[in-house]
């Protein structure tokens, strides 16, 4: 009894964590399912087929995943570069108009996705810009940018500015200081900003739905199939992607640990 009382917060915390995983367990279980009918969620028969042949069954799925990966990668690169430059300017310089810049970065985060998506749609329509791959990309870079800036700024705030001053004292110019001192120290912050951008872009449905034209991304494919009942293969390969993500994450953490040990 005493033990429970002492650890009550941890127990509640772990229960909440379990709750967060419930739908993931369902997704994983269904990825091994061979359903009798395509319209039910009941577990009928165990199979590895969904994992061995992720692209069979739902023809349109693999191209949709490819589109999402492509958009995710390009918008991550774009948003990470633009955002890192902005974060550096905001944290390391004093200049007029900083407040305006901060506000400009805060507003997209404070806007609901329907507003971001629909306002871009009205712009593209009135400019007669064709909807498709490029409009999705433009939108994704836009909404990832603020999140990159916030993440990189947090890392810059935790860095000791004296390291940069020391480099300057040793006659490094601004560019050399940035390249040799700031950038390496900033790398973990940039990496987590990039990871965040990618997952925001890869998973986005609402903004994309407004600006996609006839281009189908992975979330849009899932949405489309959901309207007709779920082909199970969608689930199989989605879980595959998660597994991939976890591996990447594990690698990053492992690398950091090794670095910490070496240091």
């Amino acid at each position: 009894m005493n033990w429970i009382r002492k650890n009550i917060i941890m127990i509640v915390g772990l229960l909440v964590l379990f709750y967060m995983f419930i739908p993931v367990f369902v997704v994983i279980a269904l990825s091994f399912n061979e359903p009798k009918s395509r319209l039910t969620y009941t577990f009928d028969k165990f199979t590895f087929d969904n994992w061995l042949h992720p692209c069979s069954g739902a023809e349109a799925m693999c191209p949709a995943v490819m589109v999402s990966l492509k958009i995710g990668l390009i918008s991550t690169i774009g948003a990470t570069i633009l955002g890192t430059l902005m974060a550096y300017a905001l944290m390391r310089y004093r200049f007029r108009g900083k407040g305006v810049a901060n506000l400009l970065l805060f507003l997209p985060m404070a806007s609901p996705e329907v507003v971001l998506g629909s306002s871009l749609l009205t712009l593209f329509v009135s400019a007669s810009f064709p909807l498709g791959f490029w409009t999705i990309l433009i939108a994704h870079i836009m909404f990832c940018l603020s999140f990159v800036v916030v993440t990189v700024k947090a890392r810059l705030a935790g860095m000791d500015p004296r390291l940069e001053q020391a480099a300057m004292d040793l006659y490094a110019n601004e560019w050399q200081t940035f390249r040799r001192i700031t950038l390496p120290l900033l790398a973990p912050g940039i990496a987590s900003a990039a990871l965040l951008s990618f997952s925001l872009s890869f998973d986005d449905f609402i903004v994309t739905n407004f600006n996609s034209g006839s281009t189908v991304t992975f979330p849009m494919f899932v949405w489309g199939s959901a309207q007709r009942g779920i082909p199970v293969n969608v689930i199989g390969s989605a879980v595959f992607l998660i597994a991939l993500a976890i591996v990447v994450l594990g690698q990053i953490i492992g690398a950091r640990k090794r670095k910490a040990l070496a240091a």
Partner: protein
Amino acid sequence: MTNTDTSKKWVPYLLLAPGALWLALFFLTPMFNLGATSLYDPSGSLETGYVMNGHVGNYADALGEYWPQFLRSFTFAAIATVLALIIAYPLAYAIALKSGQWKNILLVLVIAPFFTSFLLRTLAWTALLGDNSSFVHFLQDIHILPEGGRILATPFAVVMCLTYNFLPFMTLPLFTSLEKVDPRLIEAAGDLYSKPFNGFHRVVLPLSMPGVVAGTLLTFIPASGDYINAQLLGGIKNTTMIGNVIDRAFLERGAYPTAAALSFLLMAAIVILVATYVKRAGTDELV
């Protein structure tokens, strides 16, 4: 290090320019465009084109027809935010102050579910709460639900899923601010004969307020504009949120002026709510 070298005043502007330009072009311009669209003559269409005649009546029409959905969106979002706060707080507290060497692993576990697609997780809930699911049968057997009672297609299902989907947006800011709390302060409160609850109420809770404010905003804003949960878990009538209305008005009915007015109203309502809330909570550190 703050660079004050006057000969290089242009450097920060050069660094800011590309990103700021992107936001000006693809965030600010669309907002103005949305505002303009909301004033078009509603009798036009995408094919025939719209006439700009400053038709403010669009707003009255939109509000008159869709105020119940507005109200419902904010109610659902508010309930989901409070529930998420109650659920996430113990988790964030446990990770920040009680987990010791397990901290990093627990943090990864908090984020891990969110590498599965948002839509797939929501669909998994429709399976778990569906009419033939064992959970619903169980509730019927113990008479919490009446015979033939449903969970799917009720406001309960929508609010529950909103809460679930935005949980990490609540947990992470809470964790960040709780992690900064010095555990010795809690011990000190105990040493000074404060009961555990008082120690929490007077010491930990005030120190975690920035996290509470950030977390509630990060949950409330997307939840009030969301339409995925209402679409997948809701019914036909009493769960429609304003996001569903805007989405359909733009993409199915092509009623651009009304839809733009609704979108603009949603944005305005949220900006006002957020500004008031931040002011009352007294944290301007968010920007």
